């Protein structure tokens, strides 16, 4: 197995808050890696560092051998890291299909966008295929702002997929979504993983993480606490301590661990 994403010793402080403190994370190619930890443990900040939205104070991030530590989000995306956001972010005043088309541009220089039309037949076909994959192709002509929360999650997943990234970072894909849809999303992730896609998933739903992931990293107070297969992580006393003892934790610990 080769390491696709390798973050070493990443630190980041926002004012007096040390969001990340010498945090390291490796994502193996072809894996579904889970990233868990109490609220405020730095999971999303690590996502932001890896995708170029936040510049780290220290540490390095490598993707497939190239240094992306201070790369901008568009450059990171072009290299092949796609992400979704915890609070779903879609383009609400254009149509669902147009949302998809925004992401389908990786081979173009931006200047060509001036002269070429919004989409080619192939791009529309591929966009529709991915919308069909997540199950919302019948909404393609609708203004995206009209979608429900669950549909927005699916759209966000679809427009990341349409660009065919090597790694997909999902920030709480199961958050605020009903059980049926959670199972549906898990099924999609398994299908894609079987086809060779690598996933890094931040999630609070333990059942979701433990059943899906091949490797789990637990974060606590800005650093990586434990890394290992789901079963060994679940049994690790350090993890229980982190959830029980975390002062910034606002969720009951047992519920989180047992799902």
């Amino acid at each position, binding site marked *: 197995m080769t390491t696709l994403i390798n973050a070493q010793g990443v630190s980041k402080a926002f004012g007096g808050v040390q969001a990340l403190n010498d945090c390291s994370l490796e994502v193996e190619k072809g894996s579904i890696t889970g990233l868990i930890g109490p609220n405020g443990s730095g999971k999303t900040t690590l996502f932001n560092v890896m*995708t*170029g*939205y936040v510049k780290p104070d220290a540490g390095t991030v490598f993707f497939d051998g190239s240094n992306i530590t201070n790369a*901008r*989000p*568009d450059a*990171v*995306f*072009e290299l092949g890291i796609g*992400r979704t*956001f915890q609070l779903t*972010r*879609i*383009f*609400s*005043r*254009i149509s669902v299909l*147009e949302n998809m*088309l*925004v*992401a389908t*541009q*990786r081979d*173009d220089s*931006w*200047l*060509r*966008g*001036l*002269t*070429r*039309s*919004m*989409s080619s037949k192939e791009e529309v076909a591929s966009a529709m295929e991915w919308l069909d994959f997540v*199950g*919302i192709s*019948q*909404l393609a002509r*609708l203004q995206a702002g*009209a979608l*429900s929360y*669950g*549909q927005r999650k699916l759209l966000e997943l679809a*427009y*990341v997929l349409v*660009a065919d990234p090597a790694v997909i970072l999902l920030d709480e894909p199961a958050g605020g979504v*009903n059980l*049926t*849809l959670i*199972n*549906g999303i898990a099924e999609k992730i398994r299908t894609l993983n079987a086809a060779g896609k690598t996933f890094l998933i931040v999630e609070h739903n333990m059942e979701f993480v433990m059943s899906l992931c091949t490797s789990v990293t637990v974060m606590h107070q800005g650093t990586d606490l434990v890394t290992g297969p789901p079963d060994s992580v679940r049994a690790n006393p350090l993890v229980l301590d982190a959830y029980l003892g975390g002062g910034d934790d606002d969720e009951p610990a047992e519920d989180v661990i047992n799902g």
Partner: protein
Amino acid sequence: MLQMKKLWRLPAIAIFAVLRLIKQNKWWLPAIAIFAVFPLIEKNPEYQTIAFYTLIFMAASTSWNMFSGYSGYVALGSGAFYGTGAYTMALASIHWHMAAGAAMFWLVPLGGLLATLIAIPIGWIALRVRRHTFVVITIAIFFVFQLFAINMSFTGGTAGLNLPFITWNNSYYDIPFYYIAFAIVLFAVVLSASVRRSRFGLQLLAIRDDEDRALGLGVKVSAVKLTGFAMSAFAIGMCGALYAMFQGQIYPQFVFDPLFDISIALMAFLGGFGTLLGPLLGALVLESMQQYLTVTYSSGSLYLILFGALFLIVILFMPQGVVVYLRDRWTKKEERERAAVIANEVAFAGDSA
């Protein structure tokens, strides 16, 4: 008698035909026809002048909307481009000793070009900030330009500049200007429409909705914004150049006019911010009304009262502008009902999955 009664129906039939075209998104067909023949039918030079100014504002507002409306970056310093175009026309025609006449029209695109060149450094600075800060920065940069025009020697200072006098027949005076202005309107509309259909335009719309998300999907937001900003300056610069030529003399406070900045933005907001038809409609209503009131009642400020009332009505009853309001009335209603049905079906499908 019966025949006469039927004749009375003709205007009604014509109006319905036009409305149907608008509903079919072919509003430009009757619009082009009406504007193309207007100065041939309406010979009164007063009204032709009103029409000329209206066209200038239709072009400027459309061009402004092509960047600000699509990207959501409300620029309130576009008067800098208008003034640059006007001074380019004035200085070039004076220094190159242009023989007064039709040849001067060739300087109109030059005014647009200079405005575009000026827009690049302005955009480079102003587009680093967003929303309210962007608005304030563009206003500030605009006033820097106005100060330059008032204080530099090559601009003639507060005395302004006199252009070579055009000596063609008075009865035809407005007509060439009218058609050049009309051509600029067509240019701005075609450009705006093709931007809306291009990948570039889609990226501008994505920036309007969520700039950081667009960046994370590989959109080169800085380059796209700057290109859009510079492109929108071109037609505005041409309007300024044509205005200078039409007036024959320019003063810094009239070509670098803060009211111009606000007017073209308000026209777009009134008609429909971010739509193709909106700024055209807004400029048509506001500018022609303003000119008409000024000419008829020789009061330069009467229109402000009416504008205030009009904006109150629009903000209260159709905050997205007239065009969006009407379009929703005509088409979106059934679409929305259909969407609700689909959404229900999806919800059921999701439950059974």
